């Protein structure tokens, strides 16, 4: 019986890890479809961001209530993984509570801590479900979440609650079996939480208890494997990508927009033709100005899209969204990811990308949304994991203006004025210092 379980476990674990690795590889390939961008300066500042933003969740604490609940779930997730390690090793080696004899008196304390965390995770997830489905917190109930995104969020919360309940039930059954000195159930001290519930199981037979313990153990670890493979298809991928995303997040002032060197050079050659490369010299291949589709964005923009957990802090702080415009920075990230996934599937099917007549602009993100952005950077500031929706918006706007000449009439007038009068309004450049002359006269 033990051997069968052992083989089954190894097969299952191996498959889960193989599938997960494969999917991670395809996400990595998708991210690499983006334009190259060198981000490797100032490593010490970058590691600092990983520690503060990703590990310490600094930006989450702008909203203390969800931050504390989230921190409980997150700490629980990380620390309970030590217990998963034991379960994993037990499964492979066909042992039971491998660590118990090794660390002796410390073991029940450790498990006790895990149990407390498990309860915190359980309670927090329950509160999260209430916030989403009963209190209907605005940013968690906007129309871009209709359908799969909403189900995804609830599914994750319910799964976490189930996993934690299985863990606690397993320990309770285990403790009763321990008290009966049944077979290999190593005697430990009472665990802090499950120890309070042993009376519930005391009337059950040994075999029933072993059955409960085994079923919980298996469901728990199968649940963990399933969750692992669910992650890359879910918004929940942020638990992994938050770390690299915090590392690669921008260190420049938020107000600074990326320079377009190709255009800088073109303007330079126009102003000073003697600097232009000789005709016939090798010209760099023309790159599209701005971004029409996901491949025109930087790989960091694409990693941002996979790192987004759709919490909506960006959208809740967006002045355009607050005043009822169609723009939602969260939707920009969701659209980018959806389109990237579609492009990825296209490549999987056709070996390389075959034009499907669609693009990120127009088919996913409309001109109206893009036009409404005031570039106020509230979305960038709000994101707990260092995502920059504004960077994508800027690139798409560049494409609209420079490749499609798609601008509202007022912007055409503005540009015309800047070009001809050196100011966005139609004033004579000669009057630029009129105010100074007035003052000098007085």
């Amino acid at each position, binding site marked *: 019986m033990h051997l069968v379980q052992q083989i089954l476990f190894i097969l299952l674990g191996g498959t889960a890890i193989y599938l997960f690795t494969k999917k991670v590889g395809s996400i990595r390939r998708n991210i690499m479809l983006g334009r190259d961008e060198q981000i490797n300066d100032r490593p010490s500042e970058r590691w600092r961001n990983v520690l503060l933003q990703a590990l310490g969740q600094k930006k989450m604490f702008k909203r203390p209530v969800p931050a504390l609940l989230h921190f409980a779930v997150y700490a629980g997730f990380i620390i309970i993984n030590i217990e998963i390690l034991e379960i994993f090793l037990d499964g492979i080696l066909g042992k039971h509570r491998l660590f118990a004899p090794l660390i002796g008196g410390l073991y029940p304390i450790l498990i006790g801590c895990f149990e407390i965390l498990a309860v915190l995770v359980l309670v927090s997830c329950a509160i999260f479900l209430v916030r989403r489905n009963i209190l209907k917190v605005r940013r968690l109930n906007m129309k871009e979440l209709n359908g799969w995104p909403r189900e995804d969020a609830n599914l994750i919360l319910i799964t976490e609650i189930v996993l934690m309940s299985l863990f606690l039930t397993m320990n309770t059954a285990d403790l009763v079996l321990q008290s009966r000195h049944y077979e290999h159930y190593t005697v430990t001290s009472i665990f802090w939480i499950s120890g309070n519930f042993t009376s519930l199981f005391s009337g059950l037979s040994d075999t029933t208890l072993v059955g409960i313990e085994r079923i919980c153990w298996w469901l728990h670890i199968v649940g963990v494997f399933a969750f692992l493979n669910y992650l890359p298809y879910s918004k929940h991928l942020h638990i992994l990508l938050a770390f690299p995303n915090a590392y690669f997040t921008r260190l420049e*002032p938020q107000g600074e927009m990326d320079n377009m060197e190709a255009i800088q050079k073109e303007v330079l050659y126009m102003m000073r033709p003697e600097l232009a490369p000789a005709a016939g010299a090798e010209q760099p291949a023309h790159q599209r100005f701005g971004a029409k589709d996901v491949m025109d964005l930087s790989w960091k923009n694409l990693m941002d899209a996979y790192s987004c957990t759709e919490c909506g802090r960006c959208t809740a702080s967006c002045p355009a969204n607050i005043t009822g415009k169609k723009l939602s920075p969260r939707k920009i990230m969701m659209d980018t990811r959806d389109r990237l996934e579609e492009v990825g599937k296209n490549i999987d099917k056709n070996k390389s990308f075959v034009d499907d007549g669609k693009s990120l602009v127009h088919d996913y993100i409309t001109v109206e949304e893009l036009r409404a952005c005031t570039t106020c950077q509230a979305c960038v500031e709000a994101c707990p994991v260092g995502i920059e929706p504004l960077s994508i918006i800027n690139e798409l706007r560049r494409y609209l203006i420079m490749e499609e000449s798609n601008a509202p009439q007022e912007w055409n007038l503005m540009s015309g004025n800047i070009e001809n009068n050196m100011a966005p309004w139609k004033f004579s450049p000669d009057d630029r210092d009129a105010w100074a002359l007035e003052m000098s006269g007085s």
Partner: protein
Amino acid sequence: MMIKSMAEYAANGEQPEVLFWVGCAGSFDQRAQKITKAFATILDKVGVKFAILGKEEMCNGDPARRSGNEFLFQMMAYNNIQTLNGYGIKKIVTACPHCFNILKNEYPALGGEYEVIHHTTFLQQLINEGRIRLKEGGSFKGKKITYHDSCYLGRGNGIYEAPREVLQALDVELVEMKRCRTNGMCCGAGGAQMFKEEEPGTTRVNFERSAEALDTGANIIAANCPFCTTMLTDGVKNKEKEDEVKVMDIAEMIAASLAE
């Protein structure tokens, strides 16, 4: 009072202490011209040797770049950098956070490297150095004032305290809006929105922000940007509060409070 241009300084073989970059709004917009004049008055009274570019100044290209027109931005930047470098400019002060952000953060990559300072920070320094002396019991003393963080000074460049310290120097009662500092809400003008109609929505961005400012019960909404000043003034008018509540640039408040 004489306001000298860089060309005049150069003709005399002199260098000013600082170049005052006026910006398009400050040069042409009637409301913003008052801010420009207030700031120039302060510099003059305090004895800061400053110059303007005058007719040689051009739009820095911010609305072009933010709307997506990188070509136009690069052209404006090229010409401005030629002018600034031609005069050997080292230090620039400006009363517009959009000009400040572009000159400070976006010109260096194009060969224009200067020490750039926003006028609120400059005012704070002049106060701290004792160069600006304020009237005892000035007209803003004890007045309830709220301060609007502009996006490009606040979030864009992390400057939140300098303007508040200037206001504190006026002994005002500073009341914060619900959304302030890093959470501050945009006035609605940035990203070249100033120059076009808003997209359809439930309200206008400047109405939303002005309502929030009015909710504080402040008599004055202090701003640091000519575009915010315009947007908030319109928002206050929309609520028909323009008789009770004034929108003022911090420079105007200081200019009105200088010791004789």
